[in-house]
């Protein structure tokens, strides 16, 4: 059960001395394709602690927003700032991103996690230790030597998240982490995400699953047609949605 309070997350267990990404700011973001504005003049700030869900119907621009904020895509207009600076290149391991379809290397599960740790600059011995721990926490230690690609969909998703978390990122983006998962896998993934949040990682995830958003979120950014229509504490959003679009969406109707 996530905290009911607005911005009172638990004290992070991992102390972070430098902040390389937060506050994560997007100002005046515009992405247009074929004359249509997929992101329509978006201003957003992500800071503090806890878990933010970017919620909204399909085609709202949620994934696109995440990619722009992560520096994967340059917006047509506007800019993104990481701790006050423009993203010059990927700030790994400070910023992690788990794609909707996990991209795993053609190696064992263990090798995948180790790869990320080595890229993050960990020593050999340190990597080994952290890998074992990450796999254990993901419940994948019995599959450590298996080729990552023979794992089931849910296992692959957990592995991708374990890989992202093993390097202890400051911010973690997740794009629809539970898409196409059965309830048991979904619960396992949500547990991992909750654990990351408890450890002090700032989590931003994209979802169109209302129930999940209710379960996990401290904060909601509701998107509709390329705009962030509402942005605030989760509890108030679910209790008193301000916009007609949000109301429709929460009621299970397609917002116009």
């Amino acid at each position, binding site marked *: 059960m996530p905290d009911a309070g607005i911005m009172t997350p638990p004290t992070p267990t991992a102390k972070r001395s430098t902040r390389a990404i937060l506050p994560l700011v997007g100002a005046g973001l515009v992405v247009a394709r074929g004359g249509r504005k997929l992101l329509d003049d978006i201003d957003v700030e992500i800071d503090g602690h806890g878990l933010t869900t970017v919620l909204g119907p399909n085609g709202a621009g949620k994934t696109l927003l995440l990619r722009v904020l*992560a520096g994967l895509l340059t917006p047509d207009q506007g800019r993104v700032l990481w701790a006050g600076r423009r993203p010059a290149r*990927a*700030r*790994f391991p400070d910023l992690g991103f788990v794609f909707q379809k996990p*991209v795993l*290397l*053609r190696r064992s599960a263990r090798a995948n996690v180790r790869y990320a740790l080595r890229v993050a600059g960990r020593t050999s011995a340190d990597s080994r230790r952290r890998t074992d721990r990450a796999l254990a926490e993901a419940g994948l230690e019995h599959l450590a030597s298996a*080729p990552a690609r*023979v794992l089931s969909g849910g296992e692959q998703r957990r592995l991708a998240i374990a890989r992202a978390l093993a390097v202890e990122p400051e911010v973690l983006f997740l794009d629809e982490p539970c898409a196409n998962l059965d309830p048991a896998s979904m619960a396992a993934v949500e547990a991992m995400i909750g654990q990351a949040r408890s450890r002090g990682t700032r989590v931003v995830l994209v979802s169109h699953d209302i129930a999940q958003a209710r379960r996990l979120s401290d904060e909601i950014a509701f998107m509709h047609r390329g705009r962030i229509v509402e942005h605030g504490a989760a509890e108030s959003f679910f209790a008193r949605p301000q916009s007609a679009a949000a109301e429709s969406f929460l009621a299970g109707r397609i917002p116009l």
Partner: protein
Amino acid sequence: MQDFSAAFGQAFGLLLALDRDLMEIVGLSLRVSLTAVFCAGAIGFPLGAALAVARFPGRGALIILVNALMGLPPVVVGLLAYLALSNAGPLGPLALLYTPAAMIVAQAILVTPIIAALTRQTVEDLRVEYDEQLRIMGVGPLHAVATLLWDARYSLLTTLLAGFGRAVAEVGAVIIVGGNINHVTRVMTTTIALETSKGNLALALGLGIILLALAIGVNAVVMGLRTTAVRSAYA
């Protein structure tokens, strides 16, 4: 009309008896072509991977050129290598002409475009798949190339074997730079050419079948590798 069956029998008899001359020829063929393929791989793998990963002006033209060079006629390669290695040529002082080393060089030149082109295609496909993940991890271009090459290892091994097949079966290049000298630079294909020119057609055919068996063996290994790869859900 020659007695083909008797001559086939002669060829296989030599093989079974491990005839010294035949073993020498087969051994040299394998030594030259295997070495050439490894050299071609050492150049072709990074070249192909670099072409797949890097972006620079003229990249498109270079890719077309490398692809086209796959079709280099062996005899042309032999001719170019001869002109370079000849005592009248720039590399004459190296005294490589008419030695196995020259044959290795010629075959390496022949096979490198194949390996580079196939590597580029494989790594390109993989790069498209891995691109964003590697980008988000901040993996630099050199490290990315190494990562892609290792993950493409099965396809690359198949590429090596394809290069070997091309090398071991060609005659045009090795006959010009090697000279088909008895006990020095005579390999399977040049022996077949020689026996054909002597009218010993059936013996030549018998040797050809031995060469074919070699090619089949190589392909069987490839098949075995691919099966292993599929079992590890590599592809």
